[in-house]
């Protein structure tokens, strides 16, 4: 039997993230009180302890803070290598990182410091993953 690629199992804290992703929106948990963004989502705001948290859409642009190129995978369901994963610092807040794959370009081209933008990859009927691709500067500022 073909190994199954790991699937997120949303809980009360993270359900809003995956619901938004299914509609092709990247929404990040944000404190309504102090306006701090947090990812992965938290049980309360770890900045001001508020319980008033909500998911808000982000612009979907950022910079590669760290990246890896997986040549021998140790995660079931990922037979096709190499693939690149990037930890993207979103433009909304310093240190606000979202991890995803780099798509639309050979994995070997992943580099720290690259500008990227959000795209969505439909895995199957139920799962849509936020991903990132190189930001073409001609796409912005229009």
């Amino acid at each position: 039997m073909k190994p199954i690629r790991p699937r997120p199992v949303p809980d009360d804290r993270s359900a809003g993230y995956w619901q938004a992703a299914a509609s092709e929106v990247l929404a990040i948990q944000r404190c309504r009180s102090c306006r701090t963004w947090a990812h992965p989502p938290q049980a309360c705001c770890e900045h001001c302890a508020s319980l008033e948290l909500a998911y808000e859409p982000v612009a979907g642009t950022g910079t590669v803070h760290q990246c890896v190129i997986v040549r021998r995978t140790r995660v079931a369901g990922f037979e096709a290598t190499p693939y690149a994963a990037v930890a993207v610092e979103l433009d909304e807040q310093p240190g606000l990182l979202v991890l995803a794959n780099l798509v639309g370009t050979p994995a070997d081209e992943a580099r720290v410091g690259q500008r990227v933008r959000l795209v969505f990859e439909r895995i199957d009927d139920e799962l849509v993953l936020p991903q990132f691709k190189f930001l073409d500067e001609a796409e912005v500022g229009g």
Partner: protein
Amino acid sequence: MSRRVVISGTAYSPIARHADVPVGLLAVRAARDALAEAGLAPEDVDGLANYPGAGHVGAGSVDGVDFVGSRFMGLMLPATNLRWVGHVEPGDFASAIVAGVQAIAAGTCEVVLVWRAMHNPRNVRYGVVAAPQAVGDLEFTAPYGIGDALSKYAMPYSRYLAKYGARRAHMATFVEVNRGNAAINPDAVFHGKPVTREEYLASPMLVDPLSLLDCDMPIDGAGAVVLTAHGRAEGALHPPVHVSGYASLNLYRGNPSCIVLEDHEAGAAAMADALWASTSLKVTDVDTANLYDGFTYFTYLYLEALGFCGRGEAFEFIQDGRIARTGTLPLNTSGGSLGVGRLHGVPQVIESVRQIQGRCGARQLPRAEVALAVVGQPQYSGGYLLLSQNGVDTPRQREEVR
């Protein structure tokens, strides 16, 4: 009261890729050998301290088979006169030693056994994320093919390389020195197997920027140390080594699902501050350092945080023979985790003790009065131990002497 604490016995079990006996029995063997070296018997043990975690993703959970906890050790040693048992989780071998030091210093017990055992199961690919449910810390990583130790720890190394301009050729120096030390260490899984710069540079990439030779080797094995109140182990075979400073902050900091270089640096810096605050010794007093090298680049972060060099400078610091046995800072003279095997800090501690005792044979340093053992993962801090031949005390103990 606050009593002085010494390490009076150390032992490794046999180390192999796969053992023919359960790892629990390897741990008991190491424990008994360490006690014998301290001139003590199982009935003298009144305290146990350990970090029981199996230590790799996907590991089983049977005490004595997949990991070795206090239940198995207490039963099989046997330890029949216990007054105190301490578990450190998350933690590591050196943090468990710190807990034992504190228990003795507080007068709770006099003889504490600390061990660490690791199991490498046959016919199982080590450290694989196999569960189709991505929950907890894996919820936002495993759907992207990330979450095993290699892919998580390759992430911050990519930033180190980009931020400071380090290259694989710099790291080749470290690997060549480490594996050269392991090659002359009879306890090492890579005894007799040095690695050249060229072999390191040709090593296959697993998760770029980490190659095969950037990783320690999974093994079956165990190590143990015996801590005693100063004066308790009068029949020890070798001069006991003093614990002259320590730090233990097992506090996971930063992003739980993505390890970030800056969190690594903050964790190691906090530990270094705590270590140097605990002792009158200075970084310039350290004759040799054994820094945890489960992944090669950890040693860069420790060298920088501890003050052997500035931040972002370790890859240059390790060049020019500085970390060789003949250099100004002999580093990982046992071969470290890369060379001895994946024993989570056992090589770092035991080598520090034995260098001070002058027992290291072909790799013995001419001067080793003060040795530093650092264990852990930089972002969750871990345990740092400053060991000495002549017993420089912690600040609190110095106050009491006055």
